[in-house]
């Protein structure tokens, strides 16, 4: 962004402004854009979800306000703004008031490191990935405050559930990303995307391979398993079905939002949908190459970049448009998958949720890290790293070997863990003698 602002102010207008002012202006513009986009887009995510799930239920969905219900979200927004704001007398007024802000703010922070297209990232932190998840964990505090401040049994239980769920599902999410980070060797999101160029996984640097922007991690066994684990964890983080236990309406009426009304409730809603969007976006960035896609790399090579200052600005625009198109297509595709799952499944119980996270996902992701290490060793290392026997192999053989080994490892681990987990789950259903024996001892 600074490049563009610099271009406009210093090059075309010729005012020699100091670069810090340019940087300030650039960042202010970006921040304004993001803060404008996020809520607006959340509104339309709700419409998108309602229409899609209605289709899945052989219905039509909201189609009255405006053409095809386009303005339905705006109507909802007006309604939620004009609703009365009710605060329970027993509530802790200040905490009750601040909690929604504490929940919303982190989701807005997370936009700071989200790349939208080639060279279109607000801040290229070299720890972007870590930053993303660190900030996302802050909103748990807000949920806790909300549940505690509204002094309501349902709200407190909901907050406890929400926090426990978020904290325990951050582990598989981060572990599954760790495998990817092992392969790329960097925590920078931009670096992660650049790594996914090329024709297939980890072939960006190999010469004589065209850059089609298709080297997505999803095409490798490691990436695939990591994707499954991460997406499940993302569902839990975003409190989507089948993990929407914190606001399980059939048990605890609305969870930590029970005592909220009007725009405070709206803020929780906004935070949840923005978080969902961000999780879909990060999924598409990490495993599906973000803005990577056929053509973007080539266009961006011709564009004005710090690498080649003498390029055509037209290519900037084209690459940006194409990249953002790819990125948003993937992101909304993942949101559709979220809606799809919501339309298909029931909700897990809280202890089953914990069992699934701790007894199934975390072992799976640990195995995945191991196979990621194998992948890196077989594709990257050589004698220097003490892996001499792979030196002689041709790159294709090494790649095939890595693929086969990791595939076998992950598949075996998945089946094994699935069997173990299924057996551990239905011990209460078949009333075995051992269960009854220990019951007799208890009784």
């Amino acid at each position, binding site marked *: 962004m600074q490049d563009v602002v610099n271009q406009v102010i210093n090059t075309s207008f010729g005012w020699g402004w100091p670069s810090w002012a340019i940087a300030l202006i650039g960042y202010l513009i970006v921040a304004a854009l993001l803060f404008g986009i996020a809520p607006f887009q959340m509104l339309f995510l709700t419409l998108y979800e309602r229409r*899609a799930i209605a289709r*899945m239920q*052989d219905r*039509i969905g909201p189609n009255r306000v405006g053409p095809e219900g386009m303005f339905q979200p705006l109507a909802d927004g007006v309604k939620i703004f004009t609703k009365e704001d009710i605060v329970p007398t027993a509530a802790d007024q200040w905490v009750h008031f601040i909690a929604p802000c504490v929940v919303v703010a982190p989701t807005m922070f997370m936009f700071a490191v989200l790349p939208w297209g080639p060279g279109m990232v607000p801040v290229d932190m070299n720890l972007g990935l870590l930053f993303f998840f660190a900030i996302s964990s802050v909103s748990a505090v807000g949920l806790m405050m909300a549940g505690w401040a509204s002094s309501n049994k349902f709200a407190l239980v909901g907050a406890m559930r929400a926090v426990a769920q978020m904290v325990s599902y951050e582990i598989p999410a981060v572990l599954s990303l760790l495998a990817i980070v092992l392969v790329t060797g960097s925590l920078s999101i931009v670096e992660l995307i650049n790594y996914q160029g090329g024709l297939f996984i980890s072939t960006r640097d190999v010469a004589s391979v065209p850059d089609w922007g298709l080297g997505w991690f999803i095409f490798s066994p490691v990436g695939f398993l990591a994707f499954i684990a991460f997406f499940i964890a993302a569902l839990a983080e975003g409190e989507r079905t089948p993990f929407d236990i914190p606001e399980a309406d059939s048990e605890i009426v609305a969870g930590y939002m029970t005592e909220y009304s009007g725009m405070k409730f709206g803020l929780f809603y906004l935070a949840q949908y923005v978080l969902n969007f961000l999780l879909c976006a990060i999924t598409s960035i990490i495993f599906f190459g973000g803005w990577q896609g056929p053509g973007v790399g080539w266009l961006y090579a011709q564009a004005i970049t710090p690498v080649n200052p003498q390029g055509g600005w037209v290519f900037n625009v084209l690459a940006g448009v194409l990249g953002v198109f790819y990125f948003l297509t993937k992101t909304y595709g993942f949101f559709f998958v979220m809606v799809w*799952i919501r339309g*298909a499944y029931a909700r897990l119980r809280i202890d089953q949720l914990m069992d699934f996270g701790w007894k199934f996902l975390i072992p799976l992701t640990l195995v995945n890290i191991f196979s990621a290490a194998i992948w890196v060793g077989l594709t990257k290392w050589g004698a220097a790293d003490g892996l001499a026997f792979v030196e002689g192999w041709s790159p294709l053989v090494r790649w095939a070997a890595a693929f086969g080994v990791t595939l076998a490892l992950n598949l075996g681990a998945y089946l094994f863990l699935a069997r173990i987990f299924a057996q551990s789950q239905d011990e209460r259903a078949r009333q075995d003698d051992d269960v009854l024996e220990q019951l007799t001892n208890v009784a």
Partner: protein
Amino acid sequence: MTTETQHGSVIVMDRRRGKLRAGQGLLQGLRVVWDHWAGSFRKNDNFSKIHGTFTVEYPEERLPMPQAYRNMPVLLFDDESGHELCTGCYQCQRICPPQVIHITQAKDPVTGKMVPAATEFIIEYDACMSCGFCAEVCPFDSIKMDHVYELSTANRAALTMRKAQLNRSISYYTGIAPGLWAEVQAGAMKKLQGSIKRRPDVIGLAASLTEKIKARRLELAAAAAAAPAAAAVSAPAAPAAPAAKLTPEEKAAKLAAMKAANANKGAAPAPAEAPVALSPADAKAAKLAAIKAANANKGAAPAPAEAPVALSPADAKAAKLAAIKAANAAKQAEAAPVSVETAVATAPLDAKAARLAAIKAANAAKLAAEQGNNE
């Protein structure tokens, strides 16, 4: 294990134990939902399909109502004769489970005998459970179930339906349920003719059909004119008697309207005498009118309010019109007492007609009142 019995057996449901559950069931569920999503861009129009949207966007498109659909009971009347099929036989009132039907049977104003018609027929729609028993038991097929279902209102009292609001024409009912009407048509019409024969005066005519009522009155007047002698001798000859007593009233109706219209011009009694003179009633009537004119000054003020209403057709609008006229007349009562009271004087030719006038006045006032609070 299945144990055979004579017809069919007992099957123990198979829980599919021991097969590895590694997410294939979840994928199946996704598949089903996807099929519905993909198929939902067509419309699911017939019963043999399970895919496609089956939403009916209500205000624009509505499902066709089956003939047997029953929502709220209504009363039928015959289009050409204008007579209601209801005879006030109380069958529906007896069968109604929530007891929301209230009937007042008509009486002959002359003889006071029961007439096969209902002067008032009330159904409390707000308490009706639309079970359809009233329509089933009605021996004259007069009460039928309507298909109108948009009855919601903020005013609960407005859901207490009187006869004037319950009346529907047979053509309307054949429009919504031709088959059901075809089954019962012959018998219903035969019974209707039977009950029409036994209905004097305008009793049993649907109140909304003013022109029919006028026509009926005129033909009654003609009948009366055909038998003046019978009328002169006020012997109670059954069919002619009401006619004879009605004709002057009929004329006085026009007269009252005219009077009330130009009362402020202070019309001279001369035009007032004229119609009285040429009324079919003989000299007795004129003499009587003169006497009334002499001592009606005191009764002038209340009288006009009564008279035009009494003479107006039972139709609600006319009733209101009459009420307005009455008000005007009352204003003019002091200005030109003579002009008004002559209008009165002609009306009550004898006691029975006066009573009839009173009844009509009451009904008309009721109608006017509730028309007022319905609008």
